[in-house]
C-alpha cells in the first residue's frame, strides 16, 4: 500500500458564513499567502519522510481550497518535492480546455522528470457554475475531453479534432510527456457510470468524498467490468481518499481534530449552496444512483465518519487497524490521506507518525 498526502490548501482564516460562491471581501491576502506556504511545507515534509505521492485538487470560489488551478501548485511542487509522485487529483476536465490540460500535464511531467499522476475528475456539482458549463453535459464532456487529452499526448502528427463539445483545427503539444505513452490516468469513480467507464478504458479509479460501504460498490462494479473487458485491476489502480489525523494517543488525536473541526467547520462543498445543488441535481448530474451519490456527499458526525471509513483518526495502532480494514474491504493500493485541518506542528507530527509508525506496517498490503 502506498501513502499519498492530499493537501486541499485550505484558507486558514475566518471565511464568513457558509455558502458558495464565497464572497471575497473577507479574504486576507496575508492569510492566503500563509495558508499556501504552510500547505506547501506539509507537502514538502511528506516527501521528505517518505510519502509515495503528494496530491492537490481543483476547487473554486471557496476557502475550502485555494487551488483553482492545481497545475500551478504542481509546478511549484516539482521544484520542492524531490521523490514523491506529484498527483493532480484532479483537473476538472469537463469545465476546462482539454488541450490546455494536456499541455499542462506534459509540462509538469517534464518538470518533475516523469513523476506526474494525471487525475481527470468531473469535480463537485458546484464547479459547473465556475466557467458556466451545463452540468447536464458533464459526462459526455468528460468522456470526450479525456479522449482528446490522450490523443494530444500520443499523436505526434498535428491533428484537427471534430468533436461534439470540442473543436480544434491543429493540436501538436510541446513539451511531450516524459512517461510514455503518457502519465498514469485516474478518474473519479464513485458512480456506477464512472466506474464502468474507467474499467472499459483501463483507467485507474479514484474515490473521494465517500465512505467504505459506498466505495465497495464502486470497486466491485469496477472489477466486474474490468473482467468483462479482459483485465484485472491491481491495488495501484485504486485510490481511496480519506481524511486523517494521527496523534500519540487516541484521545489526543480526537481532541485535536475535534477542536479544529469546531473552530473551522468543514461542511460540504456540494451542499454549501442548497439551491444551486438542487439545480445541478435536476440537470441529471448524479446519474442513475442519484440518491446514493447525494447521500455520500452529505456531512456526517465524527464517529459516524470514522465508522464508515471517511476519517482515519487515532493513535498509530488505531489508524493502522482502520487502514487494514479499508484495504480488506476495498483492495485500494493508494491511500490519499487528506489534511482536513492544517494544525501546524500537530499536522507535521501526524504526517511523521503516518510515515514512521503506520506505513511500515501496511506497506506490504497489495
Amino acid at each position: 500500500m502506498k501513502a499519498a498526502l492530499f493537501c486541499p490548501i485550505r484558507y486558514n482564516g475566518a471565511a464568513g458564513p457558509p455558502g458558495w460562491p464565497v464572497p471575497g471581501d473577507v479574504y486576507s491576502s496575508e492569510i492566503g499567502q500563509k495558508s499556501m506556504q504552510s500547505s506547501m511545507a506539509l507537502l514538502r515534509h511528506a516527501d521528505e519522510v517518505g510519502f509515495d505521492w503528494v496530491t492537490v485538487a481543483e476547487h473554486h470560489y471557496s476557502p475550502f481550497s485555494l487551488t483553482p488551478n492545481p497545475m500551478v501548485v504542481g509546478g511549484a511542487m516539482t521544484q520542492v518535492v524531490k521523490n514523491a509522485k506529484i498527483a493532480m487529483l484532479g483537473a476538472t476536465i469537463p469545465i476546462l480546455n482539454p488541450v490546455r490540460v494536456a499541455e499542462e500535464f506534459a509540462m509538469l511531467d517534464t518538470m518533475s522528470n516523469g513523476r506526474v499522476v494525471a487525475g481527470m475528475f468531473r469535480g463537485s456539482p458546484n464547479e459547473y457554475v465556475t466557467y458556466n458549463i451545463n452540468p447536464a453535459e458533464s459526462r459526455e464532456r468528460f468522456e470526450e475531453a479525456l479522449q482528446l487529452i490522450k490523443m494530444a499526448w500520443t499523436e505526434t502528427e498535428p491533428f484537427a479534432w471534430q468533436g461534439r463539445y470540442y473543436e480544434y483545427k491543429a493540436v501538436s503539444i510541446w513539451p511531450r510527456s516524459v512517461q510514455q505513452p503518457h502519465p498514469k490516468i485516474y478518474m473519479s469513480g464513485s458512480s456506477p457510470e464512472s466506474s464502468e467507464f474507467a474499467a472499459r478504458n483501463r483507467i485507474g479509479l479514484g474515490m473521494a468524498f465517500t465512505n467504505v460501504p459506498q466505495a465497495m460498490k464502486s470497486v466491485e462494479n469496477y472489477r466486474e467490468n474490468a473482467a468483462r473487458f479482459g483485465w484485472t485491476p491491481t491495488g495501484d489502480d485504486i485510490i481511496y481518499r480519506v481524511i486523517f489525523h494521527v496523534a500519540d494517543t487516541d484521545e489526543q488525536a480526537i481532541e485535536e481534530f475535534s477542536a479544529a473541526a469546531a473552530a473551522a467547520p468543514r461542511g460540504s462543498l456540494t451542499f454549501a449552496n442548497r439551491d444551486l445543488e438542487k439545480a445541478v441535481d435536476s440537470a441529471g448530474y448524479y446519474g442513475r444512483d442519484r440518491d446514493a451519490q447525494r447521500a455520500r456527499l452529505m456531512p456526517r458526525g465524527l464517529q459516524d465518519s470514522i465508522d464508515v471509513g471517511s476519517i482515519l483518526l487515532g493513535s498509530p495502532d488505531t489508524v493502522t487497524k482502520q487502514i487494514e480494514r479499508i484495504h480488506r474491504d476495498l483492495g485500494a493500493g493508494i491511500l490519499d490521506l487528506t489534511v482536513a485541518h492544517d494544525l501546524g506542528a500537530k499536522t507535521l507530527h501526524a504526517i511523521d507518525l503516518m510515515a514512521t509508525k503506520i506505513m511500515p506496517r501496511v506497506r506490504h498490503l497489495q
Partner: protein
Amino acid sequence: MLMTSDKNVKLIDDTGQGAVIVFLRGAAPLSKTVDVLQNDFRVLSFSIAAATPATEVIDVVTQSLESLNVTEAAVVADRAAATAAVAFAVARPELVQSLALLSPENKVGDVSSLKALVLAIFGTIDPARTPDAPRNFCRSIPNCRLMYVYDAGPAVDDDRPEAVAAALQEFATRREGFLVSAKCGKLYP
C-alpha cells in the same frame, strides 16, 4: 439534373446550389453528409463500382463536370473511392481545388505529383486500424492535414454527418485557411 454516365461510374445525385463538391463513393448509398452539405454547396455524388480502373473514373467524372459546366470543385472520397479520387486529382489538378479523404486506407496510388491540399479524416473508433495508421497515411501524402472525428467509426460521414459536413464545408471553402477560426465569438451585441 440526374444523369447516368457509365455502368461503373455513375452520377447518382446532383443537389444543392453554390460551389461544387464532387463526392466520390464506393458502391455505398448516398452519404448522410450530403444532406447537410447541400444547404450551402452543389453536391455531385458519384458511385464507383469496385475494381473500376482509375482512368475510367477520371474520364467519366471529367466528362460529367464538363457537361455541367463545372470548372473547379472540391473533391471528397470515401475509403473505397480514395485511390480513384487521388488519381483524379493528379490527372486534373486544374479541376480539383482540394481533396478530402474519409477513412482512407494506407495505399492510395501514386501521390508524388499530387498538388491538391488533402484533408484525411478518421473516426476515433476503428478497431481494425492501428493507432499510428492515420499519422503514417498523412506523412505519405504531400500537403496532408489530419483530422479526427470523435466517436465515429470507419463510416465517419455516416456516423457523424454534421461534424464531417462542417469540416468539409470549411475545408472546401477556405482550404489551408480552415486552420484559422472564422467563427464569431461574440455572445451579445
